[in-house]
């Protein structure tokens, strides 16, 4: 949900900047033209001053030529026509020279300015500040990724090394990857913050999946999110019990927030479990909450051994969930089951992994508690009253489910009947043989008569 909001927020920012960018580009386009115009005038200004010395030189040369010609003229015999022509030339040339001088004066007055051309990458690194900041952020993210990934990996392997011997005492196979022929001692990496251990080959259970859910140290976003909503590294043991291994028990206990979240998320807890108050009489810590279907299971499960461990390792225990009706997470709003969901018998133990000097002893004690509760529940049987109560609840849930889906099933049945009738009528129309057609028509009429006739139940007398 949060990521969806983030997505919408980014979309809004992009749309806003696109709108601004359009105007900016228009200004830019005009600015380009203005710059281009300035460039043209400046280039002309640049060109003309450059050309003035060139213009001067030919003029000087021309003057020089004229001087020489002037010198030459008195030496040569003067012709009247040539004098006039020369004077005209002189006048024309003088006017040109005067114009050039005026132009020179006007040109000289305007100062030289540099055209605004973007300089090359290599000569202008200091102006790429935003790019440098962006690349630095990406570099930091990459460095954090490698450090976080390494840290998580070492945490996971350390936990596995601490617990593998105890797990080997309980299971014939510890650490299966599902692929290799001789599996043993494999820690499966799901993501850089999630590791799995599959154990199997034990009496009463088909397998246990231990999932290490670590803090997302490899992701800066995850780390920042953890500052606002702190979560510790956790290990979740999911035990898949054999069929009918435990009696009808639905029970959840642990940290208040975790219990509230579990009751909200899981169908079995939301349907059957009832919140129990006054947990002090059971000796539970104040930070714990408890929901159970049948009250007698609470005192059966919370014996002195369990209570002692709960009190001693309170900060390490997050959630203990025992159920014989597990069918996964609750459906989203608007979704319904089309048929009664399959249930399984499961036990979930969520423990916090806190790095401490005596973590080896803590891990051992927590696993001890896990298998102690497992064996206890395998042997535990409800009283007759408790059993009847539990069965009644399950039956009422099944009935209410059927009622809700009754209409849907009826509609589906009706649609199927109509489809079959349509097919029969189509076959009747398509039939070419008149004999067959008559026979089919008779059958169709009989069916309609039967449908219209009142339905009567037949009672058999014994």
């Amino acid at each position, binding site marked *: *949900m*949060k*990521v*969806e909001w*983030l*997505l919408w927020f*980014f*979309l809004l920012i*992009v749309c806003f*900047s*696109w709108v601004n*960018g359009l105007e900016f*580009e228009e200004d830019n386009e005009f600015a380009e033209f203005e710059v281009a115009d300035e460039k043209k005038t400046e280039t002309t200004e640049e060109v003309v001053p450059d050309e003035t010395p060139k213009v001067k030189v030919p003029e000087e040369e021309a003057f020089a030529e004229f001087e020489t010609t002037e010198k030459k003229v008195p030496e040569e015999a003067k012709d009247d026509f040539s004098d006039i022509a020369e004077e005209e030339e002189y006048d024309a040339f003088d006017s040109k020279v005067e114009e050039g001088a005026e132009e020179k004066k006007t040109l000289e007055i305007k100062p030289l300015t540099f055209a605004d051309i*973007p300089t*090359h*990458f290599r000569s*202008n690194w200091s*102006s*790429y*500040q*935003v*790019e440098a900041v*962006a690349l630095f*952020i*990406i570099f930091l*993210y*990459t460095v954090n*990724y490698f450090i976080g990934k390494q840290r998580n990996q070492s945490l996971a392997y350390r936990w596995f090394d601490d617990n593998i011997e105890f797990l080997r*005492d*309980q*299971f*014939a*196979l510890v650490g*299966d*990857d*599902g692929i290799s022929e001789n*599996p043993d001692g494999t820690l*499966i*990496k*799901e*993501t*850089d913050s999630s590791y799995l251990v*599959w154990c*199997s*080959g*034990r*009496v*009463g259970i*088909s*397998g246990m*999946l231990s999932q290490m859910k670590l803090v*997302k140290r*490899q*992701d800066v*976003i*995850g780390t920042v999110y953890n500052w606002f909503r702190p979560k510790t590294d956790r290990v979740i043991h999911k035990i898949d019990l054999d069929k009918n291994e435990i009696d009808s028990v639905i029970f959840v206990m642990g940290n208040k927030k975790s219990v509230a979240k579990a009751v909200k998320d899981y169908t079995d807890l939301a349907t059957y479990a009832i919140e129990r108050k006054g947990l002090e009489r059971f000796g539970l810590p104040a930070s714990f909450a408890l929901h159970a279907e049948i009250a007698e299971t609470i005192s059966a499960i919370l014996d002195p051994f369990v209570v002692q461990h709960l009190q001693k390792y309170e900060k390490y225990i997050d959630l203990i969930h025992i159920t014989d009706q597990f069918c*996964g*997470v609750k459906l989203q709003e608007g979704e319904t089951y089309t048929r009664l969901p399959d249930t399984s018998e499961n036990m979930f133990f969520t423990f916090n992994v806190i790095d401490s000097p005596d973590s080896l002893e803590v891990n051992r004690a927590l696993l001890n508690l896990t*298998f102690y509760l497992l064996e206890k529940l395998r042997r535990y049987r409800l009283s007759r009253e408790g059993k009847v109560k539990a069965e009644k609840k399950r039956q009422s849930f099944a009935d209410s489910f059927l009622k809700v889906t009754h209409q849907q099933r009826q509609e589906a049945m009706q649609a199927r009947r109509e489809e079959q009738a349509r097919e029969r009528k189509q076959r009747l129309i398509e039939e070419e043989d008149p004999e067959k057609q008559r026979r089919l028509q008779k059958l169709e009429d009989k069916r309609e008569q039967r449908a219209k006739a009142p339905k009567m139940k037949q009672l058999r007398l014994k």
Partner: protein
Amino acid sequence: MMQSSNDPRRPAKIVRYKPIDPQTSPVSSEDSLPEYMNVLGMLFSMCGLMMRLKWCSFAALLASCISFANTRVTDDTKQIVSSFMLSISAVVMSYLQNPSPIVPPWS
């Protein structure tokens, strides 16, 4: 050799590990972060390329990095590689078209 009655191990009862199929099991919003970041990265890359917004290209690169950091081992690597390539091409194309630097907001 007879197994002691206290030993709970049963080698005959071993069940091999079956990875959960990501298509059949529902994915929570936490787990779908790499997909969101992938889509966001592609969106930013398109904006960066078509509207010539340089900051969009850099944001696309960052989104690709976040998606990579949260990716699962079972996910397709082609998708993340293509996301990276797209964001890098967005950055390169933005600067080829207009080599001028982004105007810093503090200037």
